[in-house]
């Protein structure tokens, strides 16, 4: 029975329970709704909770535990024959899993006893061809051990899912019976249902914590694994980025410094574009512009913020890059050798950040109390003097916060640099050179088939950790500054 049917059964039982609980409660009050403690639907709801909650929890827990336990069994049986390392067994396990999927597809192959597979070399080869005809490619040649392991795997999975179905159904029915049994007119059903809803709400709110924990755990574990294969000191202070995918590690140079340099350079150019334009637009919009201009220009600026980054990436790759090439390329002054360069990515990223900087600064400038402006005008200052000498100093902490937030955005931005900045990791001061960034390298190291065991792949997690910590620090700092600033004037 597939899981969808099991779930349907559970919901069917729940519906039945709802009806049973409601009728039983009404019956105990001789059909008089006023004699009940809660509305009838709450009695039904209590039974539904009893039917669904324990069984569903059990189901989820079972699904989580099932595959590690089964794989443990299979790996132990495999290891007794091959006695290989951890790594080899995890590769083999992947084959076993793929194999098992293949056995499911090809009818008749699933059963050990029926045994349509010939265990001779030729028979195995035939079977592998049959598998690849069905779209299942194994990592290595098919061996009898893997075949038996796959069959054991399937058999164990079948047994496990049989017991899972049975146990979950029984628990659900027991829950239903218990719930119905408790339904009578004096039972405080509403309190139970509301407590249940409350628990659900708390669980939903905790998903934010779970997500953060998930991010931290997935980064930390893989980073630790990376540092067991590669010396941390070479990673953090290495000036060379040259991963090799040919050999089994060892000769790759995975220094993070060139990537960090590229990231900071691109972000710097982006901020040099975005901060002046964004800040002056915000000043113009909030201090000078008439209502009509504001109503027209502000939404247009915000359109820039709503455009997905892939669009900016393509814009960098196919429009801005060639445009800069025409201006600075070999035909004119020869500064640029290719469209992909730090300046391309930085410029486009700057455009992307303009609305971000301007709307944040706009909020902050508007939050400066009107009394400060009027005081300054009263002393005879012109509008620009007021802005430069009163408003901007008052708004400075907030604006710094906004710039830090923009910097964090720039550091974490991926698509623009993947498409616009180039792929070569180098330490150079020339903004017309192609360089690469942390995010771009995360993408290139993790895209494609990967088995999460070579340092060249695992380095992406170390890069991810670096990126996460950098942006987190910037965000926390910026939010702290902005919040303190807001409190200052509220």
């Amino acid at each position: 029975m597939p899981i969808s049917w099991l779930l349907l059964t559970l919901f069917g039982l729940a519906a039945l329970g709802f009806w049973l609980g409601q009728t039983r409660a009404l019956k105990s009050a001789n059909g008089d709704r006023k004699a009940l403690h809660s509305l009838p639907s709450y009695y039904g709801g209590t039974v539904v909770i009893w039917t669904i909650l324990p069984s569903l929890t059990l189901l989820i827990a079972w699904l989580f535990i099932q595959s590690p336990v089964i794989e443990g069994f299979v790996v132990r049986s495999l290891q007794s024959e091959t006695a290989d390392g951890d790594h080899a067994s995890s590769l083999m396990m992947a084959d076993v899993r793929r194999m098992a999927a293949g056995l499911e597809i090809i009818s008749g192959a699933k059963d050990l006893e029926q045994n349509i597979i010939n265990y001779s070399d030729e028979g195995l080869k035939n079977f592998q061809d049959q598998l690849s005809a069905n779209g299942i490619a194994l990592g290595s040649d098919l061996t009898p051990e893997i075949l038996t392991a796959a069959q054991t795997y399937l058999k164990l999975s079948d047994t496990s899912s049989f017991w899972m179905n049975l146990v979950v159904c029984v628990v659900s029915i027991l829950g239903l019976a218990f719930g119905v049994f408790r339904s009578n007119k004096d039972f405080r059903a509403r309190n139970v249902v509301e407590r249940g809803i409350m628990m659900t709400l708390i669980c939903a709110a905790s998903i934010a914590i779970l997500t953060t924990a998930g991010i931290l755990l997935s980064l930390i574990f893989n980073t630790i694994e990376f540092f067991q294969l590669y010396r941390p000191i070479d990673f953090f202070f290495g000036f060379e980025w040259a991963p090799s995918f040919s050999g089994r590690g060892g000769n790759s140079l995975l220094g993070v410094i060139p990537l960090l340099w590229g990231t900071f350079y691109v972000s710097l150019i982006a901020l040099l574009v975005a901060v002046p334009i964004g800040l002056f637009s915000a000043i113009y919009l909030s201090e000078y512009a008439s209502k009509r201009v504001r109503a027209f220009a502000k939404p247009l600026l915000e359109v820039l913020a709503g455009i997905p980054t892939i669009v900016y990436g393509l814009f960098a790759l196919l429009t801005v890059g060639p445009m800069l090439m025409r201006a600075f390329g070999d035909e004119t002054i020869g500064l640029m050798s290719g469209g992909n360069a730090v300046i391309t990515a930085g410029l486009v990223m700057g455009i992307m950040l303009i609305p971000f900087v301007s709307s944040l600064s706009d909020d902050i400038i508007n939050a400066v109390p009107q009394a400060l402006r009027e005081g300054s005008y009263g002393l005879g200052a012109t509008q620009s003097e007021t802005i430069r000498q009163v408003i901007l100093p008052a708004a400075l902490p907030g604006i710094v916060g906004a710039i830090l937030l923009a910097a964090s955005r720039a550091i974490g931005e991926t698509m623009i640099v993947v498409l616009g900045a180039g792929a070569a990791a180098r330490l150079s001061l020339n903004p017309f050179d192609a360089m690469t960034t942390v995010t771009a390298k995360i993408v290139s190291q993790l895209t494609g088939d990967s088995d999460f065991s070579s340092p060249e792949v695992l380095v992406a997690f170390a890069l991810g950790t670096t990126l996460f910590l950098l942006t987190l620090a910037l965000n926390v700092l910026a939010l702290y500054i902005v919040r303190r600033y807001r409190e200052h004037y509220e």
Partner: protein
Amino acid sequence: MTNNGMPQDLPIPARSLKSTNAHSRRRLRAEKCFRALGVSAMVTALLFLLLLVMSIVSNGLPAFKRTIMSVDFVLSQEQFEEAEAALLKTGVYSDFFTQSLVETIQALDIPIEVDQGTINRLLGKVGSILREHYRSNTDQLGQAVTFEIPMASRVDRYYKGTLSREGISSNNRFIRASDLDLADTLREAGLIRQTFNWQFLTGVDSSVDNPGGAGIGASVLGSFFMMLVVLVLSLPIGVAASIYLEEFAAKNWLTDFIEVNISNLAAVPSIVFGILGLAVFIQFMHLPQSAPLVGGLVLTLMTLPTIIISTRASLKAVPPSIRDAALAVGASKMQAVFHHVLPLAMPGILTGTIIGLAQALGETAPLLLIGMVGFVARYPDTILAGFEGPNSAIPAQIFNWASRSDAIFAEKAWGGIIILLLFLMSMNIVAVLLRRRFERRW
């Protein structure tokens, strides 16, 4: 009111506020400069927007057109049998076709030499189109059938103006200047024309041997399934979390911790969510790679903070008097929230959700990490396969096209961007309309 305190006959001062001197002129000039700086910043930003929009429109619109040649062709029963018996079936079909086409063109009295190679360069491989047609319509054997054959991608680009004659060398394998002369003549004769490219909207990705036929249809479907997952998960979870935080949460360490987490998650780079998805859903839970289901899960986690923040704002906007009134007539706190506050906040919540979904729809980076950039050249067979089978998404497909070298794919990428932006625009318009229609001022 009397003027006692004001001497009537005071002389008008030589320097009024209105008159200027060197100092005040300098200040006024500084004022003007500053203002001009503001205007120019504004205008620069808007010019960037204009440049962006123009390059999207001018580069993307050609993707919606394609050049076709309409040809009348007769295939006899014997030819059909001969072709089906041959080893390279499509090759035989295309031989028959080119022979007939060469004769047709020669009958037009065109002073350009036409041979099979010319036809092959102009039309690409036509055999499979013919074979598919005749195998499913055997009754049309021996009758004249009008085929509308898409031209090769280079001829297509020539008519769209992205391929110039000058760059073509005389021994180019793909196209020659004489081919284009022939195409021009045929165009005047009415055999070649441009039509709307439905294939781009409904088709699937294709490889380099048929670059003109690549379409975005399958990845639109992939995005649709992904958005379905995001909607089904993030709306209830987001609303539940916001209700707890806004209405019930006591001020304690747990609540504070959740709040800090949400505001930090909102600022975590999207690629980190991709790493999370790869490590947790694929490496740990062994969910299938490249599946819209996994993409949807990752995007859900990414959108949740946005939805929670906007939902909390709209819950906060419902005045406390509503809650008080419900409590006064005997509702429990839970009933007050679910029966009264939530329905009133619903328009705001939906607006926020649509905006969150629009953000998720355009997100690319996390999808790259969970493998949604593979080459997917077919529609899913079943609804279940739509969720867990490999598929692409609109932005990932655009990225995929953008990283290929053939120039025709650049045009496809821009066209894909127009589609993506149309979706985003309509979602945002719906959100704005919702807000206009149901906005309530208390």
